[in-house]
């Protein structure tokens, strides 16, 4: 591992949140963000000797992420029913049109505190769905709830978390 490779990897790590935010913008498919970020990392490292690590890497990473994201998006959606494809494309368009700057790193940090402030029952729901990977049907069966009620409850908790994150986001620092 030479110094340039090590530095390239370190710089990528420092921009990891940026890459994820861009991935979510170009391919807003649930669970696809990590895949894209991983692929961008591999492609970035494969050509690391070509990159000028002293400059701003964000334009380069943004372009790479866009290409990888669109590739993944096409792979993921091409075999879907036409109506689902239409919906997916509409959502992708909505996400791309959103002009808010990526604040992924900061939002993850804030989200953790927001989770800690949730009522216990809401936390339990999040834990079961995201941490234990239970389906809404299984959660409903275990908690004696209708699966639709679980969907609505999860939806409400995500609304709360989104509001909490937005409330706690600080103004963008000058040096970011």
């Amino acid at each position, binding site marked *: *591992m030479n110094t340039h490779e090590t530095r390239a990897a370190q710089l990528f790590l420092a921009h990891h949140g940026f890459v994820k935010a861009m991935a979510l913008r170009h391919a807003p498919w649930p669970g696809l963000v990590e895949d894209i970020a991983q692929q961008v990392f591999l492609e970035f490292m494969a050509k690391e000797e070509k990159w000028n690590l002293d400059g701003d890497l964000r334009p380069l990473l943004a372009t790479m992420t866009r290409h990888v994201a669109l590739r993944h998006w096409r792979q993921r959606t091409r075999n879907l029913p036409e109506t689902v494809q239409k919906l997916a494309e509409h959502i992708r368009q*909505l996400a791309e049109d959103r002009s808010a700057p990526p604040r992924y790193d900061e939002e993850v940090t804030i989200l953790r505190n927001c989770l800690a402030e949730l009522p216990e029952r809401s936390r339990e729901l999040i834990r079961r769905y995201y941490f234990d990977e239970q389906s809404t049907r299984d959660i409903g069966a275990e908690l004696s709830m209708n699966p639709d009620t679980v969907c609505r409850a999860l939806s409400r908790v995500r609304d709360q978390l989104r509001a909490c994150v937005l409330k706690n986001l600080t103004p963008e620092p000058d040096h970011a």
Partner: protein
Amino acid sequence: MPEAPETLLQKWLAGDITGPEAERLLDVLQSDPVAAGRLLGHLHVDALLRDLAASGDILTPPETDPALPVRSRRAWPAGAGWMAVAAVAVALGTLVLIRKNDPPPPGGPSVTASPPEETSKAVALLTRSTDAVWEAAVPPGLVEPGWLRLRSGLVELEFFSGAQVVVEGPAEIQVISPDEAFCPRGKLSAEVPPQARGFRIGTPKGTVVDLGTAFGLSIDGSGAEVHVFKGEVELHDRPGSPVRGLREGQAVATDGKGDWNAKNANPTAFAALHGAGARADELQRQHFAAWKGAAAALNADPQMLARFDFLEATGRRLPNRSSARSVDDATVVGATWAHGRWPEKAALEFRSLADRVRVAVPGESEQLTLDAWVRVDALSRRYNSIFMSEGWAEGSLHWQILDTGAVRLGNHGGHGRRGGDFDSPVVFNAGRFGQWTHLAVRIDGKAGRVSHFVDGRKTAEIDLRTGPLFLRPGLAELGNWNTSTHADATPIRHLSGAIDEFAIHSRLLSDEEIRSTAEIGRP
């Protein structure tokens, strides 16, 4: 009855929406901009939650001070599961191990690759060197099969078979296995205990097979000599020729034609090799005296906040030798006093959860340089502390060794400034365990740049584009970490090893100053 938008949205997020449901959701999104914005918000939170779930600590209890970020010690967010693996793989040069899985919804994708457990091919140990000048530097410690080329000086090798070989330069020796070496040039003596019987040293003129003894071997362009001081050796000079046995007091030397001729063993011809131990001890005493002699000048630096030299065992109090005395004496908790780099000098050994040295570094700094002499015996924890601010408050510094062997300087950030983890390449592997290593980290808070040094040599200079750093070490510990009220998934971070010198400056030491500090303290 049509399903509520929330249910459709959830089905989209779960990846099991049907065609008709997709059609209905599309209708909703096209006709209701608020619903569209809400869906994007859900997608965003869903991605963040998957990230946190992948990190495995989604249920971390709340911080005592909820205003503080729980875990922002990386410039990237928590939950970078595969990235953590990637970072390890990068550090170990094993990127090929990273595999991409299909993303299992929900919970996000995972990477199952893990770094290979470190192994060592070492067959010998370089235990001592006296005035050694190498063609390519060979540090003390484990020696793997390969060539050692010594221009001058003496070195001592202990083969894992038990054979002990002292080599005098100029010499070339190829270490082959725990019981075999090849020497085309140089002078050496070997002590071979019964357990290492059969230890052999090949030369271009023949192979000496030891039968449990002590012998000397000298070889150069003009010929070779084998002298037996004790016991018996066999000389296999060429294939097919009879094996020649040599007993104590006997020797052989090649003549101009390359034939072996008998002569008497001459121990005085190898006297320098037999006196290697005494010479090495004397050299160590000189190094210790030089280190002590340099202390006054070092301590007089007005920007030295603290220097703990561990000169002698001082009970629970560790005196700060810095003339400026901006930092109080430190307090030893649990750690055991032991020998340091030199027999005359003390060190503190850290072995258990309780072992630590408490030190308070008041105030904020724009620049800091930390350096320490550390002996790492094992990387038993995921994070192995060198110097760690208590808890993880604004301005905190966490100088620690990762289980990959890389050194990390973590800075929390604060006062509107971002922090980050500044990692060196891998420093510690099996070959360095048990050896004294000089580490330094230079933190340019104004520029947001951190440089790592190992044994006086710069190994990394890192700018994570964080902008200026906020540095406030505060109450801190050597060799351990007090989590204070901070909740963390890896609260146990004690060092397995020893520290016998630590200094902290409120300025950037130059490359030359760090090199000089390492050189003067070299054992």
